[in-house]
């Protein structure tokens, strides 16, 4: 099993300044503590919608790498998005699913089918170009460069246990300030890149 904050720490060194990172729930709170940056997209609003927001970002900015930090409970609420994404085939699209088997921020109740659901299998069946399950941190670290270089959509499922408890700042992720910061950075970067 992989400690989530260690996985995110490993990811941090591979994220470039132009990449768009869409994060939800505890993965989001951990990521904001570990890697605060303007192009973190944190206002996903309704549970399960991260993958759809990420697809919208990919459609609007196809030249940028999109990385999703999704949860297993969240993804279960929007399984159809796997088919939508598989159909659209966004090329720079890495979908990380942190599978801890519980609704962590809602009382840690088990998700339906905890431990028996094959998210990677579902992604491949839905049209993702590749999907892999990781059980240990070292294997994930070794695979990261290829995961990010691969033609998307690609999924990596991380069998996860909680790490250090980072603060849950709901006010920030739902704030206009968070959205303004992302919007400004997205469009400002385009100008800078031109």
């Amino acid at each position, binding site marked *: 099993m992989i400690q989530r904050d260690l996985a995110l720490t490993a990811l941090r060194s591979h994220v470039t300044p132009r990449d768009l990172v869409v994060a939800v729930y505890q993965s989001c709170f951990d990521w904001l503590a570990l890697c605060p940056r303007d192009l973190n997209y944190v206002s996903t*609003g*309704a549970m399960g*919608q991260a993958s759809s*927001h990420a*697809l919208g970002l990919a*459609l609007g900015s196809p030249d940028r790498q999109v990385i999703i930090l999704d949860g297993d409970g969240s993804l279960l609420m929007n399984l*159809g998005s796997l*088919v*939508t994404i598989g159909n659209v085939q966004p090329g720079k699209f890495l979908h990380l699913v942190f599978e801890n088997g519980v609704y962590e921020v809602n009382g840690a109740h088990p998700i339906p089918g905890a431990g028996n659901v094959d998210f990677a299998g579902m992604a491949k069946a839905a049209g993702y170009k590749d999907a892999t399950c990781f059980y240990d941190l070292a294997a994930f670290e070794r695979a990261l460069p290829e995961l990010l270089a691969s033609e998307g959509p690609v999924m990596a499922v991380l069998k996860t246990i909680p790490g250090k408890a980072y603060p849950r700042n709901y006010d920030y992720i739902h704030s206009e300030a968070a*959205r303004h910061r992302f919007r400004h950075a997205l469009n400002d970067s385009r100008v800078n890149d031109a």
Partner: protein
Amino acid sequence: MTTASSAQLSPPRGEDIISQLKQAGVGIIVSVPDIVTSDGLLWPISTDPDFRLIRVCKEDEGVSICAALSYSNTRAVLLMQQTGLMDSLNAIRAIAMDYHQPVCMMVGLQGKAATETVAESASYGVRIIPPILDAMALKHIGIDSRDDATKISPAIDNAYRSGDALCFLVGQPPVFDRGRT
């Protein structure tokens, strides 16, 4: 508001609605098929090279896709039936309204007779739509007749300028003169 009687009104033309969408700079249509707008809008859009059609499995995906596209100033419209609107209310509440984002929706009112108003519709599922949108403070505009199509482009422009979400309610199946392409 959708209050006018449709009894004497000619149905909206698909060509006019499509022209208005293009005039507003809409390049992406996100949709789950709707029987009201299927022949007159969605089929023509599906073959129109000026649009990219994103077929989604469930309408709330479209709410998120349209909102995310707005960050890059990419204009999109979510085309669906009122059943999908109802299924997506929490996403609309959070992403469009709480977050104040310009999610533009076009909703076919399945079950509404051409000779009745929305408010007087025999269909409970139709009648309740405007009051629900009013309760959410979500602006809605009826597209019940040929003349109503002219409201589309200015309303979309305003939505993206103000950040306000918007919902067109299509009360009659649009006709498409060239038929299915």
